[in-house]
């Protein structure tokens, strides 16, 4: 479904990532592992269209994404759960979900919201609440829900457990598992790299912008981060 070929990217003149190659199919999961500054978020931002590649290709379902902005990539099935949640704090939970489903027809909105509520029932009591007043865990659920609203085929999850209580982290992993069962592919970054590698079928280890290792998680080398 998604192929990354010889991808090099960064910020302005600074190249952060060099020669990244991997692919991910429907329902597969990939853990992105590496120390701070290794380029994990840069890779996710590049796939979601916020950073243009310096060279290389990002191909999704046969289409080269190079010329497509983040909104077009969302339409093509790329969903983003960003680091730090980045929910819209002055909008209600319902409005956050409406924005998440903006790329889909209006008539699908109620059905998509019901699907999100099914995965995160806690949000259903808080539909009219301002998102900024939710707890950290609820905000993470909302960030997931917002990404789910566009019916993505690929979900990019950045720092899933950052600042969350262990019970909430478990809840988020459980929800992610449900999405994977539905055939959604997931690329996951988590500060708890053992948890990420344990959850994902494949892993890619980055070391200061280089691809250090890529393969089945069961064969992943032990990394110290």
């Amino acid at each position: 479904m998604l192929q990354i070929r010889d991808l090099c990217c960064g910020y302005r003149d600074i190249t952060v990532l060099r020669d990244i190659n991997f692919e991910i199919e429907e329902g597969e999961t990939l853990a992105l592992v590496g120390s701070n500054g290794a380029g994990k978020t840069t890779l996710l931002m590049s796939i979601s269209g916020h950073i243009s590649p310096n060279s290389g290709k990002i191909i999704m379902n046969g289409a080269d994404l190079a010329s497509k902005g983040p909104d077009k990539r969302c339409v093509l099935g790329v969903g983003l759960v960003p680091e730090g949640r980045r929910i819209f704090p002055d909008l209600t939970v319902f409005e956050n979900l409406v924005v998440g489903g903006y790329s889909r027809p209006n008539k699908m909105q109620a059905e998509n919201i019901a699907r999100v509520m099914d995965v995160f029932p806690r949000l259903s009591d808080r539909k009219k609440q301002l998102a900024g007043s939710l707890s950290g865990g609820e905000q993470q659920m909302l960030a997931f829900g917002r990404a789910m609203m566009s019916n993505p085929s690929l979900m990019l999850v950045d720092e899933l457990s950052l600042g969350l209580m262990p019970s909430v982290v478990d809840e988020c992993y459980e929800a992610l598992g449900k999405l994977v069962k539905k055939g959604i592919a997931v690329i996951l970054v988590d500060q708890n790299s053992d948890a990420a590698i344990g959850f994902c079928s494949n892993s890619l280890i980055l070391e200061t912008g280089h691809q250090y290792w890529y393969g089945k998680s069961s064969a992943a080398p032990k990394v110290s981060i």
Partner: protein
Amino acid sequence: MLFVDLCIQGVIQGAIYALIALGLTLVYGLLRILHVAHAALFTLGGYVGVLVTNGSGSFLLALMTAMLVVGVVGMSSYTIIYKPLLNRTPLIALIASIGIFIASEELFRIFFGAYGLSYVSPPLQVQIEILPGISLSQARILVVILAVGLLSGVGWLAINTRMGIAARATVVDPQIAASSGVNVEIIRYGSFFIGSAFAGAAGVMVSLLNNLVEPTMGAVPSYKALAIIVLGGLGSVRGALIASLALGIIESFGTIYVGHLLDRDSIAFAFLIMVLMVRPQGLLVRG
């Protein structure tokens, strides 16, 4: 009676400020740029209003034409001035905007003359008694109706439509809004159109109230509107509207009670300084 009269005058002035300040605060919210050239659009609205009314005899047609023309020119200002500078520091866009504003005053002078234009036969001048002993011209009443109608219309769209909700999300975090499928460029163009069209409407109404439009008509509104969006809390639409009304009323009362000490604009800025000493983040932004 004087109290009620001053309140009404304050509301009328506040309504004009609100129409001008909306566009400025929308642009600041979306681009984090102080759109000084917005005041030139206000003046352009005044010119279109006078020229179309004098040419066609229809004030309604003039108002609609001014809003459309100024809205389109506003969108063009985004394409020409701001879009190429989005990746630069906002100071560069601010300097470009000030340059466009100064150049526009000269352009108005070149095209329409230095002494301004007036309505040949000013419309909406019939006085209507709205309260016992208080009469207002139809034009002044229209200012309030127009401001309330246009601003509540935009407010309704922002709360009740998907595009309005998406626009509010874009103000908060354009990157994540884009990743949710929102075409941020369409939101920016739409906001420039609406904000500019409202400034155009304000220009038409002020030119009618003063029966004059002249090249420097935008000078005072340019810095007054900047003061209003700072007062309301940069980027806060609701804050800008409340600040507009507050400033209108303060000016109205101030000119009567302290007018012998300070002129109208000094009163406005004294009020701004006092509020910012207490709430440096503005009236409606959480500190």
